[in-house]
């Protein structure tokens, strides 16, 4: 490893602009003649729209237009769709109801968009939006999924009887039932995975620009995947054909999944720009973000884990009800199915698994992937259950896990996944050592002497990243392939531009990707530029989510680099009159091995472009494109151990130690990886201790619509994390990378809840473990 190469702790190139306020976000974009949009939104969770009167609003100062869903539909703009088909176990396709970008018949959640107001200023738009009179016939609403599927509940979409979108299964039901029947012990739990609001620092925003002269649209938007945005807006929403639509996702301030999807606002602003003849910008305020950004999680699960007399897990049965919200967001069907049930083997060798998942409409914001997406839910089910089983069986939670670990690879689980590499003992051992697990009883006694209840809990997680082999996901219902693309352009002076289909919104790609190139060719990182986020600049790509940009995005770059290197070596061999196979690249030079003949990198690049003396038949130029389609998922795994002290008088939990031992395969930049883990654990602790979206069950109003009621983790809620890495390189991609973006959020919640329940001696505790809940649980114990 060089100072800038693979494995170096290089400070992030992009941080200067982010930390000095020089980032360029969608809301920073201004174009001549630009106007401002404000959306009229439903005040009710469920209602029929009887009439929409815009006359008063249209007469107000500064108003350019007030447009509604009827006009949108008349112009042929389509409904929003979910891009992953799931079939129920009876073979029927999922029951998807219509999501109109602007509702004109029925509204189905508080915040549902009804009309767009375009005005000279934002405050004029907002004033006029207040003057739009919507007459509603209010219908009763239902917000909890397990209630919504019962008889007699409000019916949210005519397509989905009892609000059930699909009733899907995975695994072998008969074998699992047989295992449960013959088990020596069954641990059964009811588990709720709490609903979360994503809260990226930058709220969603979009700027729609229609150019009448060119008949061309430009969409600036806060997207994690601008090409996917363009694809669906062209293919499904009829905004414009792809060649007439440019999507630019400039600096984006965090996404956590919520910016994967296409929302009504992008579509409507583009359409409104054409209708009004002016560029239209919309920026969400924080309240709108709480109301309309796709939420995460919201599962209600029953799990049964069956053990034989020797404490080996012989079967696992899981029944989950997943709240999808009022509409099916872009990948909402995949999150509680193929991103969830496929991870229910955890780190354990389980011969029989069966999962049943019912996805249910409710009168709440759409629910889709949020950091971890399905895998935190699976990990929480597995790791809470095995910890509980250890308590019930009276055995060490460490030994129970060890006894059931998978130790030979590849390992085919009963739920699709084929784990390619891992060493679960290594992470467990590292975490036990780092946490001084053996010394815990003494620390517990010392805490008790101070009147505090100390507890320890662990979680051994595995997740699937590097999404995904295109043919495999296609066979499971995905509407897209999940490869990635890269173009490497070596300029005539030897500097390099890399165009990637990945998108960076906090991950630091401009640094890690440049490190890869610096490492490969020995050129300074400063000579390398990473270009992303613009469909006019970058070839089709699939974007960033599911911790895929290292494993898939960088693998595409490697493939392109291979081609560049091969051509550069041919040119160098020709110029130095040597054999191509003798050329090596070292420290920015091409050398003939075993001689003193060398050519600097830039001279080879220059030769490629002057084309004065190239091997005969060779095309000029040094620029290569590659598409990389992974052969398997990757499987990051690790062990987290959390130690807490609970104040029995108040129920307040303090995290006194948090150890994370992760196997992410090979690591390009340890500092960036640590940052990703820190952020992930902070979000996981947020879920376990603080965060929860609450709707009023009586009327579907969002109660946690601001930070006054939605508790985000703050620095003083968090301990200093102790991190370590164990490395089994991933055999399925050229760099041996597994991915690290979500692990922290996946592995941490069960470790924390296992620790608190250990401290208070009561296992009946749901997330978030607020002081009140912990106090109650601590005081009913014993």
């Amino acid at each position: 490893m060089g100072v800038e190469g693979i494995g170096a702790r290089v400070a992030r190139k992009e941080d200067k602009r982010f930390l000095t306020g020089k980032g360029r976000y969608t809301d920073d974009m201004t174009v001549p003649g630009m106007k401002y949009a404000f959306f009229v939104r439903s005040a009710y969770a469920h209602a029929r729209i009887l009439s929409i009167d815009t006359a008063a609003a249209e007469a107000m100062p500064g108003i350019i237009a007030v447009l509604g869903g009827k006009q949108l539909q008349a112009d042929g703009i389509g409904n929003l769709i979910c891009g992953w088909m799931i079939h129920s176990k009876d073979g029927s396709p999922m029951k998807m109801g219509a999501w109109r970008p602007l509702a004109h018949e029925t509204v189905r959640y508080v915040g549902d968009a009804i009309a767009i107001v375009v005005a000279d200023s934002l405050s004029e738009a907002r004033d006029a939006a207040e003057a739009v009179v919507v007459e509603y016939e209010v219908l009763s609403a239902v917000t909890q999924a397990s209630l919504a599927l019962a008889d007699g509940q409000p019916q949210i979409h005519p397509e989905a009887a009892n609000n059930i979108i699909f009733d899907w299964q995975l695994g072998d039901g008969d074998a699992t039932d047989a295992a449960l029947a013959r088990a020596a012990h069954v641990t059964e739990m009811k588990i709720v995975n709490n609903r979360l609001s994503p809260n990226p620092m930058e709220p969603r925003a979009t700027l729609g620009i229609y150019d009448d002269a060119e008949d061309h649209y430009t969409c600036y938007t806060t997207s994690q995947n601008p090409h996917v945005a363009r694809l669906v807006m062209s293919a499904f929403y009829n905004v414009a054909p792809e060649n007439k639509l440019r999507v630019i996702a400039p600096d984006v301030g965090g996404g956590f999944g919520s910016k994967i999807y296409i929302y009504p606002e992008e579509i409507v602003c583009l359409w409104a720009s054409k209708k009004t003849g002016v560029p239209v910008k919309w920026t969400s305020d924080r309240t709108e973000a709480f109301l309309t950004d796709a939420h995460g999680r919201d599962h209600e699960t029953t799990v049964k884990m069956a053990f034989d007399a020797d404490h080996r897990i012989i079967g696992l049965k899981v029944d989950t009800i997943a709240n999808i919200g009022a509409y099916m967001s872009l990948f909402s069907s995949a999150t509680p199915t193929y991103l969830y049930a496929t991870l229910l083997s955890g780190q354990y060798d389980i011969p029989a698994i069966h999962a049943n998942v019912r996805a249910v409409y409710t009168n709440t914001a759409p629910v889709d992937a949020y950091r971890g997406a399905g895998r935190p839910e699976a990990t929480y089910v597995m790791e809470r259950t095995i910890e509980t089983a250890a308590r019930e069986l009276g055995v060490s939670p460490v030994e129970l896990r060890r006894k059931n670990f998978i130790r030979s690879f590849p390992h085919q689980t009963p739920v699709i996944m084929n784990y390619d590499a891992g060493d679960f003992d290594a992470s467990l051992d590292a975490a036990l050592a780092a946490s001084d697990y053996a010394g815990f009883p003494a620390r517990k006694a010392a805490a008790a002497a101070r009147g505090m209840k100390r507890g320890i809990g662990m979680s051994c997680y595995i997740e699937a990243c590097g999404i995904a082999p295109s043919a495999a996901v296609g066979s499971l219902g995905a509407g897209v392939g999940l490869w990635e693309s890269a173009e490497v352009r070596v300029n005539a002076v030897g500097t390099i531009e890399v165009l990637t289909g990945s998108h960076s919104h906090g991950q630091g790609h401009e640094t890690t990707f440049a490190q890869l190139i610096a490492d490969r060719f020995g050129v300074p990182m400063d000579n390398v530029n990473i270009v992303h986020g613009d469909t006019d600049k970058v070839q089709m790509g699939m974007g960033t989510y599911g911790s895929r940009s290292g494993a898939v995005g960088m693998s595409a770059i490697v493939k392109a680099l291979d081609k560049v290197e091969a051509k550069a070596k041919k040119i160098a061999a020709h110029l130095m009159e040597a054999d191509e196979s003798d050329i090596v690249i070292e420290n920015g030079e091409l050398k003939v091995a075993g001689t003193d003949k060398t050519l600097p990198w830039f001279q080879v690049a220059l030769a490629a472009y002057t084309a004065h003396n190239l091997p005969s038949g060779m095309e000029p130029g040094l620029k290569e494109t590659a598409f990389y389609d992974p052969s398997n998922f990757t499987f990051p795994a690790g062990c987290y151990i959390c130690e807490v002290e609970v104040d029995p008088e108040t129920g307040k939990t303090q995290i006194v130690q948090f150890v994370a031992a992760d196997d992410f395969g090979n690591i390009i930049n340890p500092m960036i990886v640590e940052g990703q883990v820190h952020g992930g654990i902070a979000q996981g602790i947020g879920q376990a201790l603080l965060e929860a979206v609450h709707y009023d069950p009586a009327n579907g109003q969002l109660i946690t619509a601001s930070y006054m009621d939605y508790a985000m983790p703050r620095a003083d809620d968090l301990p200093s994390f102790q991190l370590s890495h164990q490395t089994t390189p991933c055999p399925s991609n050229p760099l041996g990378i597994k991915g690290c973006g979500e692990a922290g959020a996946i592995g941490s919640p069960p470790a924390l809840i296992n620790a608190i329940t250990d401290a208070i001696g009561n296992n009946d505790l749901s997330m978030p473990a607020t002081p009140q809940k912990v106090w109650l649980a601590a005081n009913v114990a014993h």
Partner: protein
Amino acid sequence: MYATHYHRASSVQDALSLKSAAEDSRYLSGGMTLIATMKQRLAAPTDLVDLRHVEAMKGVTVAGRTVRIGAGTTHYDVASSAALAGVCPAICALASHIGDPHVRHMGTIGGSIANNDPAADYPSALLALDAVIVTDRREIGAADFFTGLFETALVEDEIVTAVTFEAPEKAGYAKFPNPASRYAMTGVFVTKGAGGVRVAVTGAGSDGVFRHAGLEQALSARWSPDAVAGVAVDPSNLMADLHASADYRANLVKVMTKRAVAAA
């Protein structure tokens, strides 16, 4: 935010006349509550009269054990006043935990008590300190000043100019913050002095800040953290919301009292 007119007052008199000249006006101090409310369009005054530049309303003075805090003094200035820390460190500690540094450098004691948020910290201190709220026209005892949720004895146009109190022999504050907002989910300010023991509770009462007779009696009998152990706190007059039930708040009232005494 709706459009509004901004006026900068140079003196209390100036503020009074600017205010009465305007149609639907509000005083503005730190703006930490009022501006946020206006941005959410929950308040729409036609005029704002800014009190932040009225010099006479700023600063902390301590003479013997007599304390005067100008209404326009920021939380930061209260928290960092060495003179005040010399006689009543508990109120400095209280101010140092209000909101975040931004809020503490803008928000004022006058704005806080005029607003009388049931979860605000200062009302408990002023009630327990038996403080006097000085306005442009009269002096109001804290017990009479805080009249209900977001309600005070202030009449239209009346300006809080200062608060005064005699620093007691002992004072302590313990706050259990709401996990989301970090306002007091329950905060208890205790004092022991010539006038006896006073225990004032914020964040918990369904009518706002209140004194608790049972706790005061127990602590009068024996000024010690464990003295509260046998006291019953009736949850029936306490708030219940998403974050805390009345029963849980009743528990916190006792625990925070105990800790406030320990800190005093």
